Each structure stands twice: as C-alpha cells, then as structure tokens.
C-alpha cells in the first residue's frame, strides 16, 4: 500500500521510498527511511497535503509525493 492511500489514524512501516532527485533526498533526510513507522494523522481541509507523525515529530507532505512511499503492516494506531 502507498502512504497516500492510508486513512487518518492508521500507520505502517515503510518498505521503500520511490521518486528521484532532490525531493527523494529530502524525504530520506527527514527520516522517511525504510523500516520506519509512520502514521497519517490528518488530511488538510482541501484534501491535500497530509500530516504525518514519525520519529516523534509532525511532518506534512503532499499526496502525490506520499504516493511514492510504500508501506506494509498498515493498521490503526
């Protein structure tokens, strides 16, 4: 499952981070690395971007970028 399809309140473990270039580098730098647990906390009022919780902090990214992140073991947190 990709991160953009995860419903608020659910989380899972990252298996792969796709995409390329500076953006991908940024996502990895921000701690979205394989084996990390990430939870979707919220969707912005207009449906995009989404709010994530990982490594004890809150990060926001857009859906289309979240679509590049693969998750496993998605379950309610």
């Amino acid at each position, binding site marked *: 499952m990709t991160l953009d399809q995860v419903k608020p309140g659910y989380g899972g473990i990252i298996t792969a*981070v796709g995409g390329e270039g*500076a*953006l*991908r*580098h*940024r*996502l*990895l*730098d*921000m*701690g979205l*690395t*394989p*084996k*990390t647990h990430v939870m979707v*906390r*919220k*969707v*912005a*009022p*207009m*449906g*995009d*971007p989404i*709010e994530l919780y990982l*490594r*004890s*902090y*809150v*990060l*926001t*990214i*857009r859906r289309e*970028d979240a679509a590049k992140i693969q998750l496993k073991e998605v379950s309610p947190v």
Partner: protein
Amino acid sequence: MSDLLALAGNQNCGKTTLFNCLTGSNQHVGNFPGVTVEKKEGPIKGHKDMILVDLPGIYSLSPYTSEEVVTRDFILKEHPKAVINIVDATNIERNLYLSLQLMELGIPMVIALNMMDEVRASGNSIDVELLSAHLGVPVIPISAGKNEGISDLLDAVTETVRHPKPPARMDFCRGEVHKAIHSIAHIIEDQAKTSGYPLRFAATKLVEGDELMIKALHLTSDQKHILNHMVENMEKALDMDREAALADMRYTFIEEICRDCVVKHRETREQVRSEKIDRLLTHKYLGIPIFLGIMLLIFWLTFSVLGAPLQDLLDNWIGVGTDWLEGVLVSAGTSEWVRSLLIDGVCAGVGSVLSFLPIIVLLFFFLSLLEDSGYMARVAFVMDKMLRKIGLSGRSFVPMLIGFGCSVPAIMATRTLSSDRDRKMTIVLTPFMSCSAKLPIYGMITMAFFPKQGGIVMFALYVLGMVVAILSGLLLKSTIFKGNPVPFVMELPSYRMPALRGVLMLMWEKAKDFIRKAFTIIFVAAIVIWFLQSFDWSLNWVEDSTDSILASIGSVIAPLFIPLGFDDWRASTALITGLTAKESVVSTLTVLTGAASDAQLSAVLHTIFTPVSSISFLAFTVLYMPCVAAFAATKRELGSLRAAVATAAYQTSVAYIAAFVIFQFGQLFFG
C-alpha cells in the same frame, strides 16, 4: 585574532534563541521552520574574542533551498574554529541525523541539547553522559528559551576552543556501507586534501552520489569507474540504492543510541496539546473559516477596537504639540516662512504619518503572535492546495502574510522556498499584499470621502490586493513561470506560548523603525516638498502653490492619470514621493493642501478627487510598485536590476489597468 564559532542545527531547534542568549542580540525568533535566512554574527558576551555566527537551519548537508546553501558553504569554506550543534531534544532522532554529518567534517564540535524543559516536564529523560560517550563529543543539556544551562555550555565551548580536537568518532557505519566509504576514502585521499574537503565527508558524499562533490574533486575516469563499481556492489548487497543506504545507515545508528540513552514514556505535553489544538484549527471543515476568522479578528482589533482610539489620542497630542510650537514661534517673532516651514512643512507632513504608529505596531504584534504560536506553519498546511492552483506552495503564503506588515522582510522570507521559480513568483506577488505603510493613505482618503464606510473600503482594498495577486499568479504561471509545482515538505512545530520578551522586542524594533523613517525619509521629503511648493523657478515665494516649481513638474506627469480620474498635479506628485516611503503620499498631500485641520484637508481633497476617482487613486496606491527599500530588496533577491525593473513595471502597469477599470466602471454607475 578572534575565533569563529558556527551555530548549526535543524530548522526551529532554537539556534537564534541561543544566539540572542549568548550575544545579547535581538535577532528575530519565531516558532516556524526557516525564520533565519541570512547568517548573523556577534561576539559572545564576556568573551569578546569569540564570534558566534547564527546560520539558517538545515536538515542535512545536502542543501535543498538557497538559504541552506549559505549554511553548508559557511561551515565548509570559512573553517569555523568549532561548531555548536543545537539538537532539539524533543525530536532527537531527526536532529542527530545532521549531527552525524557535521561530525564527519572533523571540525571540533559541542552538542547543545535544547528544549530540555519540555522533555523534563513530560517525565521523559535523556542520559546525557551516555549520549556523549556514544557520539564522542561533549553534550550539554540546555534550555535556551528559559536561559538554563547556558553557562555550562559556555564552559564546554571555551574548553573546546582552547583545546580543539575533532570529534572522537566519525564512523557510524558497518557492513557494506562501511566497506564502500573506506575504500573510496582510500583512493581519493590526495584530491580531498588539495581541494580542502574533509576526507571522510568527501568519501561519504561520493558514495551518496553528490554531484557537487564529484565535480569539486576532479575525479579521473578510472576513479569514477571504481566508484561506480563499489557503489553497485553495495547497492546489490543491501538491496537498496545509494541514497537510501546512507540515510538508513545513519538512522539505524541513531535508533540504536537513542534506545540506549533516551527514556521516552510519552509525547511531550506540547505535542499532546498541539494535537488537540489542531483538531480544531486544521479541522476538515472548520480549518479555513477559522483562518479567515482569525485574520478578520486581527484586522478588526488592529484598526478599530485598539488602533482607532490610540490613533486619535496620538493625533491630539501631535495637534497640541503643533499648536504649542506655533505659539512659541509667534511669540519669538520668527518670520513667516520659518513658521510655514516648521508648521505647514514638518509638523503637518511628519505628524500626518506619525499618528499611525499604534496601528502599525499592533499589526506587527498580531503577526508575530501568529508566527510565535506556531499557527503560521498550519496556515501553510491549510492553504497549500489553494496556492498550488496558482503554481505556488503553502510556504509562499508566509511571505505574503508578512507582506501585510512590510514588503521588505516578506521579500527576504522567500529564501526559504525551495525552487527558484516559486521564489521569483512570490517576490513579484508579495507587494500586492497591502503593506502597513499604506494604511495612512487609506485612512486619509476614507476619512474625507467615506467617513461612514471606512472599514468596508479598507477591507475591499485588502481584498483587491489579494485578488490581483491570485489573477497575476494565474497569468504568470501560464506565461513566464511555466513549470511544475514544487514539492511541499514541512515540519509542523508544536504550538508554544509566544515569548513575551521576544514579542515586545519586535514591537519596539518596529516602532523604532517607523519613528526613524518618519523623522528621516518622510521628514526630508516633507521639507523638500514644502520648499518646492513654496517657491517658483526664480526662487520667489509664491502665494498660490499652483505657480510653484512642484506644480510645474507635477503638471507634466499629471495628464498620465487623466484616464484614472485624477489629473490634479498634487495627486501625481504624491504618488511619486510615495516611492521613497508609502507614507509620504499622505505627508505630501497634507503639505500640498496646506490644510491646518482635518476638516480643511477633507475640503481640499474634495477638489482633487471625486468619490469615484478617490477609489481609483486608492486602488492605484495598493498595487503600484513598492517603495525604494522594497525595490532594493527585490533587486537583491532576484539578483538582477533588470528583473527588478521589469517587476516594478509590471506592478505599476497592473495598478494602472486596475485603477482605469475601476474608474471607468465607477463613472458608468455613479458618475
């Protein structure tokens, strides 16, 4: 020789707070990632030989935005004696990610573990000694915001400067990554030395695939070949590409030491509280109405509830002061022209502007509350989708909000935007957000023409600015600034209580700036205007200012504005002096009308404008090119005079067209 010390750390981890603490400065602090966009330096209090440099926040040494490049360049090229790395203890994993990279540089380093107050208050703890042993650098727990642990930090820093030694540990990797980094370090040793990069850092960057490093080291094709080969082997063995492999290597190491040193039972109180507050403030349906409500509330409080009475009060004092001065001048028997210069020139000109001091300070007060509380980051989150429609990202909203205060810091704030295209477009659009210096103009005109509907007219002017910015965005997006919208990756900090001291300091700074401006630029402009309107070309005193030097200059440009409905030379002159500072529009008109009271001023204004043309005049002032200070900022940020001139020309044309349309339609309906 004094020693340079660099303050480095993630965005919003408290670098500037610590900088202010250590140097006694008053640099801008805010609860928003990316407040500092330029490096700032100052000597440490009590240690004049140590110069501290505050840097923009970065998340890694692979820079992403233009202000982040500043930091990487500073640390790599200016060779600071030591780095003070600030780590936000409430968010330790991601913060240590940068620390590991800084350690690879081999520069002596001290870690300041900040925000310990929040960690402690939530019942969590961090074993600082153990952390220090794992990392091989001194770690000092502090709370910059509460001024705790600062002297311990200072001791550790002085010690490090006196006996500098590189971090004891630079190796956090094992297995395949380790193999690759070490073999590569081996083959590039000489090149790293000649090019001046720390070897370990250079090797890691090569494994990571950093283009800048590959160029900087002038690798031979043989070396490139070996490099690629080793990286391929590593990727195959780990089943991960090079970038992910390195990020994974660092984070794995960090997770291990955190498991050892960090006792975390729960989220911090601030984090728990933030989640609750956000349930309301970024609510699916309520989020946007609440944002609009907050903005309306701010404007309402600033302009009417709090601002208006304060302004009246100040106006009275200025009136009393002017009368007193006139009395003194008369009894001293000064000549009429001296009285005219001081009363009709200086007092009228400067006074008309000065009374706006409370409103402007209030506006900055509320903007700083928005920023310090952490709400500004939420605004970016809520508005991102909308801004994407005009080709920008949520982050662009922040410079625009700051633009309601002043365009200069707003234009500078665009440095935190990650793409050049976003930056340029935001710089062009930001001045359409009506800045606080234009308030006196709206105040003067609405008082004369729409005393009852002042609030509505003012609100409409702000909306006009925003609508024009949106339309311009759409236009620019499909013409000059084509391209895909950039990604939006931003941390949302915890809500925090705004620090009273910081907010008060900011208000004081803004008040000082404004008063300084009133007594320099506007003062001089008022005198010049008074002079030009009191004399004719052969320097004879004129009774009627229509015979003056200014009138003859103003009359040359005045016809340009006939299609906009105001052809009086005084209006066009005011618009031009407005380029020095927007408040000058008011002081100029006041001086030129020679009015001694508000009633008189209104009467004269009615001879210059009709109600319809007063609106087109206002529309023009909202939109036309910003003042010289903002123009200079535009030039600096766009990096070219030509681009800045083009921007100003664009803004002025837009203003002309908008005012034209408003006047012509207004004529049809009300004319």
